[in-house]
């Protein structure tokens, strides 16, 4: 017998979690699809379900004194799009996720909790060193999203923990982003690329690259990024950067695309963005 629990408060949810091994459901836009059996039949869950989607205390978007944006876990994508304080890069990414009706239900924390290699919001979250706050009856801990996601559908969450907040740390970056799906709306990503950078006095003082859908999780490599920090922008060797990432990008063949295409387009996007970055120094 599967139970479905709707907590009245976060504390109530934490108490339930401390004694139950269960699914945590927010918008349900992914879980309900995963567990779908057939029309007119209830989805089949193999564990109890804790439905936290309506917890008002986890629905907020605020700014702390350091300029970081704190997002309550149960905030819907649609609310993030409407917020004046959510950084533009996140809105750019969210606008291309699913459809308006899905975005009215889905949450960013769901995208993190899922740990799918094709999770679009993971790309800016990981590139921007965003953090998640995990809570249990025993306390609280903070992990970077990149530390939280361990692999395909694998995360660092302990059974009694729940993500209560996403922290978008203040960044001073400019971005170049492109999602490639099968069509212009409502598509699952075949490959995506995000470049974040900061240029000061013609010097590249920050440089970051992330790829989505071309590996077991979002691809980002600090070692490579550090090599290109604090160099003159004109000295940025596009071919060298590409060769650095060439082996790191390890896509697969599936029903949506093939590995040759994904790899080639990942490299093409990186080249395009690097050239734009170099071309933009005189702005």
């Amino acid at each position, binding site marked *: 017998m599967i139970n479905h629990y709707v907590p009245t408060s976060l504390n109530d949810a934490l108490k339930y979690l401390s004694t139950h091994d269960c699914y945590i459901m927010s918008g349900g836009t992914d879980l309900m699809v995963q567990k779908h059996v057939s029309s007119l*039949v209830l989805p089949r869950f193999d564990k109890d379900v804790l439905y936290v989607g309506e917890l008002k205390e986890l629905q907020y978007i605020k700014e702390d004194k350091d300029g970081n944006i704190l997002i309550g876990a149960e905030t819907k994508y649609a609310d993030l799009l409407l917020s004046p304080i959510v950084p533009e890069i996140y809105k750019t990414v969210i606008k291309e996720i699913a459809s308006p009706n899905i975005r009215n239900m889905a949450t960013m924390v769901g995208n993190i909790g899922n740990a799918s290699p094709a999770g679009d919001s993971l790309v800016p979250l990981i590139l921007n060193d965003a953090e998640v706050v995990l809570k249990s009856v025993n306390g609280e801990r903070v992990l970077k999203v990149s530390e939280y996601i361990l692999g395909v559908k694998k995360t660092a969450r302990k059974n009694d923990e729940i993500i209560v907040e996403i922290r978008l740390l203040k960044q001073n970056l400019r971005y170049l982003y492109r999602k490639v799906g099968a069509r212009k709306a409502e598509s699952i990503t075949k490959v995506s690329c995000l470049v974040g950078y900061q240029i000061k006095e013609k010097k590249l003082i920050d440089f970051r690259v992330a790829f989505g859908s071309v590996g077991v999780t979002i691809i980002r490599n600090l070692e490579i990024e550090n090599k290109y920090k604090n160099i003159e922008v004109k000295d940025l060797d596009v071919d060298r950067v590409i060769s650095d990432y060439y082996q790191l990008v390890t896509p697969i063949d599936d029903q949506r695309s093939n590995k040759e295409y994904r790899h080639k387009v990942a490299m093409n996007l990186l080249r395009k963005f690097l050239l734009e970055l170099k071309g933009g120094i005189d702005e």
Partner: protein
Amino acid sequence: MLPNYKTSVKKVDNEDKMSGLAIFTGDIQMDGALFALPVRSTISYGKIKEIHVPTLPEGYYFISAKDIVKENVCNIIVSDWPVFADKETHYKGETMGLIIGPDKDVCIDLVNKTYADYEEYEPVYEMKNSYVHKEFKKGDPSLFNGAAKVYSEEFETGYQEQIYLETQAMLMYLDGDKITVKASMQCPFYIHKAICRTLGCKEDKVRVIQPAVGGAFGGKEHYPSLMAAQLATAIVKIKKPLFMCFDRHEDITFTTKRHPSKTNISAYLDKNNEIIGLKIHVGIDGGAYIGCSMVVLSRALIACTNTYTFANLEVSGDAYCTNKVPSAAYRGFGSPQSIFAIEMFMKHLAGFLRVDALEFRNKYLVKTGDITCTSGVFRDPIILKPLMDKAMEMSDYKRKREEYSKPGSLRGIGISTFLHGCGFTGSGESTIINAQLKIKKDKNGIVTFYTSQVDFGQGNRTTLKRIVVDTLGIPEDHVIYDAPDTDKTLSTGPTAASRTIIIVGGLCAKAAQHLKEIWVDGEEQEIVEPYVGPSYIKWDEDTMQGDAYPGYAWGVNIVEVEVDPVTYELSILGTWSTYDVGHAIDERILVGQADGGLAQALGWAYLENEVAENGVFKQTKMSDYVIPTSLDMPHMETAFIDNPFPYGAFGAKGAGELTFVGGAPALADALEQAIGKKVNKIPATPEFIMELMNDED
């Protein structure tokens, strides 16, 4: 006097469909209805040794070939598809039986626990074993021996899934001892016939009623007959209402699709580079059972020279048996495949001869009075040139074609010309279908008429009614025209083959005209009007000789595209179309056909990718098998040029399929200009465009 088609009327089903009040099959609640779920084979080809069914709880049933009342055949054109796979299974997913019971959850578990022992045979997935072969000649193909040059190419097209909004669904119940069916369908009388045939029962023991239907595109022409034969076998035993409705992944995985094709064309040229004639072979992948594939092949062959006239032809084709889900009807019915091939071929041949492609194609364009490829005659006025001129003017074609010819423009504009034969092939309308229309009037002057035409969104409930209203010249609310019910209507044939307006519309106009002529106020009057085709149409299906269709509709598509050199994605920037559908009866409804048909064709050409691996489709969800969204389609401009057809209602011809057949070659032509490579295969997905662009030949 022709009605003014610019004034469109509100579709009769608009409000119900927009508000959600319309009742589709799945909306019908019937007390005590049992769910029927297919038990499917799990191998592509082999002997079914034994089916193991778990112990069934009280009130649950397993129905299989053992329960067949009379014949284990599904009545389709070639009835080789069994109602239930019995001794052998010929494709993975073939229905071996039904688990039936009151709780769908329990049924699902029972289906999962039912399995068969097999002796596996070697399956065939490639097009190599022909089960239908057709061939015909025109002129004297022996002249090919004297050719100075021969130019040959091969073309391929892929599967296409209908993605009707409403999946396959059927409710069957007993009304007294009468088997009554409500289903998502195109052809009520096909279902009626399929039930009578498998049960061996009398026609008056079966009634088929059409509820609201959410799209069909050919996918509900034959498959519902199979579902009906299965449920009918069950209802005879169980005597309770039965409901079968497919989930989307099930519908995509196991129901019929457009035939993939491989077409080979050779042109034989004389020393002046004039075409002596063509040799054309069209191969289509029919899947495990023939069903309607022989007619799809016929249509493909009849359309193989499209809008061109050649003096000498050697045409042949094969439908191949493969151990995959049978292919069947889909808007265009074989002609889009061969029209894609011939349009691209003519263009490539012009390139080979280093002459302008458009001028070269125009040289061979058909004219009124020309002999068709099957040695019939194009009798009615052909207005291809005005259609082309208008489309080119609307799209600014010449300037764009010139501008995009610069290397590296990554833009292209392409053009196709095409035709579509309306109605059943040859004299089939008079010899096979024999439509009869019943129209009656009561004492108060209220007129009721019946057809077996299903309105699955294309608008014929509105248009056919309008034909009768306009002919009689009485107020709209004095005419009653409801959805088909086989107890009330005579058969006016299937809702297929672009025949609804040209054939049934013509019949409606004629019947209404007769009623008008004998009209007496205050009296009940009834007329049964039989279809009478043009007497000059003579056709021999065995030799494929004669007039293939009662009439032809014509069109021109122009498509402009842009290719992203970074992601190889193709964007459609605009489409411009002109059509000769005779006389347009309701322009807004026609624009719906034009936009929808072209969007569907373009989806087939560049987006919709359905690949079978080991006999199983890889894309089985709408997130993986993607069709165009409104964002993927540009502004589409359409114009109609009037060219009334004497046998259609108010001069109307067919339009449903015409709007599909030219999209792919126009898009591929544009893509070729954008990337400077030949496109011999569709869908031209970004993955394929990448291969083409990086191919340094």
